[in-house]
């Protein structure tokens, strides 16, 4: 149970960063942390203690195995997160070129 709680704490750390940080790069990192927490969550659901990797090997057919599906899901989700992070970093670079700052409180031409 303690691992789930720690995982949730990691998620909250990410959320806290997104909500309170003023630096664009720190916000991007916080979104990344939230994503890691979600992935870890998926992996934890698949894990069983004293179990074996889910590949058929001779002499080990009778062991209990971890669930392979969440691992496949996490791979997909990591690729998607890589794409998100790359896009966010590209946008942050463009924003720096236009506004000459990474401070989110100074990047506010849109309001109202």
């Amino acid at each position, binding site marked *: 149970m303690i691992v789930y709680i720690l995982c949730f704490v990691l998620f909250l750390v990410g959320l806290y960063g997104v909500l309170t940080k003023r630096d*664009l790069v720190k916000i991007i990192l916080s979104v990344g942390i939230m994503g890691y927490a*979600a992935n870890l969550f*998926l992996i934890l659901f698949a894990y069983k203690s004293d179990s074996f990797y889910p590949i058929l090997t001779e002499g080990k057919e009778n062991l209990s195995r971890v669930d392979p599906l969440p691992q496949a899901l996490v791979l997909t989700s990591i690729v998607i997160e890589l794409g998100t992070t790359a896009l966010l970093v590209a946008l942050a670079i*463009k924003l720096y070129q236009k506004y000459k700052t990474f401070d989110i409180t100074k990047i506010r031409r849109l309001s109202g």
Partner: protein
Amino acid sequence: MILPYFIIIPLLAAFIITLIGGKKDTWGIALSIAAIVIMMVLSIYSFVIGKTETVTYSMSNWDIPIGICLVQDALSLFVLIIINIIALTSLLFSIQYIRHLSPDWKYYALFMLLITGMNGVVLTGDIFNLFVFMEIALFSAFALVAYGGKAEEFEASFKYAIMGSVSSVLILVGIAITYATTSTLTMAKIATILPQTEPIVMLMIGALFMVGFGLKAAAMPFHAWLPDAHSSAPAPISAMLSGVLIKALGIYVLMRIFFNVFGAVQIFKEIFIVLGAISIIVGVILALGQWDMKRLLAYHSISQIGYILLGMGLGTYLGLLGAIFHLLNHAIFKSLLFYNAGSVEIALGTRNLKEMGNLTKVMPISSSTSLIASLSISGIPPFNGFFSKLIIIIAALEVNAPWVAFIAIIGSLLTLASFMKVQRYGFRGEKIVEKIEDKIGLNMKIAMITLAVLCVVTSALIIPGIREVILDPVVNVLLDSSKYIQMLVGS
């Protein structure tokens, strides 16, 4: 089997455009319009022949609980038709509009990926696959919002991207909990297992999905990204985002999950009503104070999404009928209004209502179609918006919720007020506009006239004979989720 082609065609078009695009946009335009026309014809054809049955397609021939399946029923086909009609007009409108920004094929490739994502979300029957397609659609939406390359556009796109990623992570956690409790990702199978688990699980998953997809649908407490993103994007993209994206990614998925998978639980319907009522009132009040035309329209999207949520929350036959009908109507008139705003922006170079004037002489088509769209959105009788709002109000009175009906009526009146402002200052103002250079091409005019005609024609859907053929099968999917679940048994 037509089903997989709704995903294959736009995806293939996107890659071919990038390969043979060269430096001009000719191939991009030709291929994307061809792809969209094919898909529109296919979707209308499949709606006509198969609207009452549920068709499934198992990818790579894996059996249904193991592999990914695509599901086609009346609801998904209905949303598919809306996506493709709006996309066709949006492409027609883009041809000249985008040449003002860059004479390039990249826009068309991104546009096709956006369509791929939305078609995939609408057709898939696997909840993780839905997440993947949703991300495809969102990525292209982030890039397209920033397409103009101005500082404000990057700012809006960054805001949208952060909010979108946070909501995607919440949805992913929801999917993880769903998998942990039900050991399956096929939505129909989840629907059979979930009622046997503890009620707290459904509440937890429901809360995560409600926040995640509510953020995509821009219902009121989750709306902050919408006015920026929709007003900064190029006009045809604003029309796509406001007209289709928030419905395919937000409303459609909410309907599918909360009605077909969870089976219309009372507490979630009550939450829908509250979210809808807040969205209607606050959205329209924020819109009243705007002078930027596209920003005003963006706030109205929030308010109109509120009507759809309200109809869904009532959950009766009439309520769902109103929600489905309003979904179609809002896609049509809101896209048309964004085209009007875009054509004025191209002709006069401004979006500020105070700087516009009397445009009835110099831009007859834009101003007359904008009048039709304004009357539709504010619910004036001969046009489609009146009928869908009327159905929602009657549905509210039917279930003895007069305050819901009252909020809907107040929202409609305030909508009328703010569109009087658009017409009074924007298109029929006192300032005489000099003869302007005619930058509005034939394609743009065709796109606007098509949608204006649809505004009038779709109000015919309310006539009983036509309603039973087109809208009733869609409502039946939502009222009776057994058909959606039965696809497991059938195959």
